[in-house]
């Protein structure tokens, strides 16, 4: 169970949102929506401990996350606009790399490629990918190395209908295995039963 209590976000000395609460149960999902600049990306970065909240608490199964930040980081995936895909490496190498660094080995690479329908691009250097292929490569990390909490910032950007369907399938599988998802988006993601978090501009 992943919870936020009274989260306050300030950026550049300006308050973006305050007193935000959320709860994601195992198998649950939260979808962040709101106009541009309302703080969706900021909230995701706070949840990933990449940004410090001005106030409030993050809890995992009731315990305070700030007590063991590294443990929290190890159990999550954060996929944002900068997608850490190296142009000089092939698609497969890019995915394998992160699986190795997270200590999960290369056993699930093929499944990851297949899940996002990019098996045929395995040996293509990432610099030759189209925008959507690039994004699929970034998303394939979700499958290649398991993590219980997924934080996704506009994950469907540049994806075609087929790619969006792949992502929905992957998310559904993840939730079926009691994984949690928190995603920011401007368009429908198809997470019907998700908690909707509407951020309002202050």
């Amino acid at each position: 169970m992943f919870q936020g209590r009274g989260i306050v976000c300030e950026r550049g000395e300006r308050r973006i949102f305050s007193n935000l609460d959320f709860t994601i149960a195992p198998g649950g999902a939260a979808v962040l929506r709101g106009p541009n600049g309302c703080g969706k990306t900021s909230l995701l970065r706070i949840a990933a401990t990449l940004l410090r909240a001005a106030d409030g608490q993050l809890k995992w199964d009731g315990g305070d996350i700030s007590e063991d930040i590294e443990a929290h980081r190890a159990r999550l995936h954060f996929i944002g606009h900068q997608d850490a895909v190296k142009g000089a490496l092939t698609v497969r190498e890019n995915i394998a790399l992160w699986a190795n660094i997270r200590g999960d080995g290369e056993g699930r690479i093929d499944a990851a490629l297949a899940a996002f329908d990019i098996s045929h691009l395995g040996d293509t250097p990432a610099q030759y990918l189209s925008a959507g292929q690039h994004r699929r490569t970034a998303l394939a990390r979700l499958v290649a190395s398991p993590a219980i909490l997924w934080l996704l910032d506009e994950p469907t950007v540049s994806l075609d209908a087929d790619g969006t369907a792949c992502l929905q399938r992957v998310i559904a599988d993840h939730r079926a295995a009691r994984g949690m998802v928190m995603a920011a988006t401007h368009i429908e993601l198809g997470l019907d039963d998700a908690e909707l978090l509407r951020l309002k501009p202050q």
Partner: protein
Amino acid sequence: MKQLGAIIQRDLRLAARQGGATFLALVFFVLTVTLFPLGIGPEPAVLARVAPGVLWVAALLAAMLSLDRLFQADFEDGSLEQLALSGLPIGGVVLAKIIAHWLTTGLPLLLAAPILAVLLNMDDEGFAALMLTMLIGTPALSLIGAIGAALTLTVRRGGVLLSLLVLPLYIPVLIFGVSAIDAAVHGLNAKPHLLLLAALTVACLPLCPWAAAAAVKLSLE
């Protein structure tokens, strides 16, 4: 441990792919050293006199220039963020990247130094000392440089600011390195200088990754 190995391996592979970075840091060292005789004239006596200084200054510059590769690319494309989220301690990640940096820059410099010393007409007595100071000193360059590289992460095109931060910190390495060689060339005992240099490197080993990790954390916020 295995994961740190994976990071080192990844950095080495990226270095190899991206236009042979190893080969290229080396080339900068060689080119800078060859510019000097062109600048100060070909007289062997003058060249021999300035050889240790020129070699070490060129090594400093070559090491420094390769620093912006250390974290910058990973920072810009989000890889550093992902490394921080991989659950490994950031100090460890930083240390792994420093090791990879030394393997791709310090080591090649070390190997090229004697050939360049010949070109600069350095006295034969100095060769052993040159190699030793390089072996002990270049790791310190990578270690100290990591702090500067981490501090200038959020600065766009921070290359020159980096040099401003790092070069002053490099000065002790330069001084001990050169004085050890000079002592050997003049038939004096080089050992005290070498010991000082070694002490410096050993002191950097725990301190620098820790400081660099703190700077990296800052830049990710």
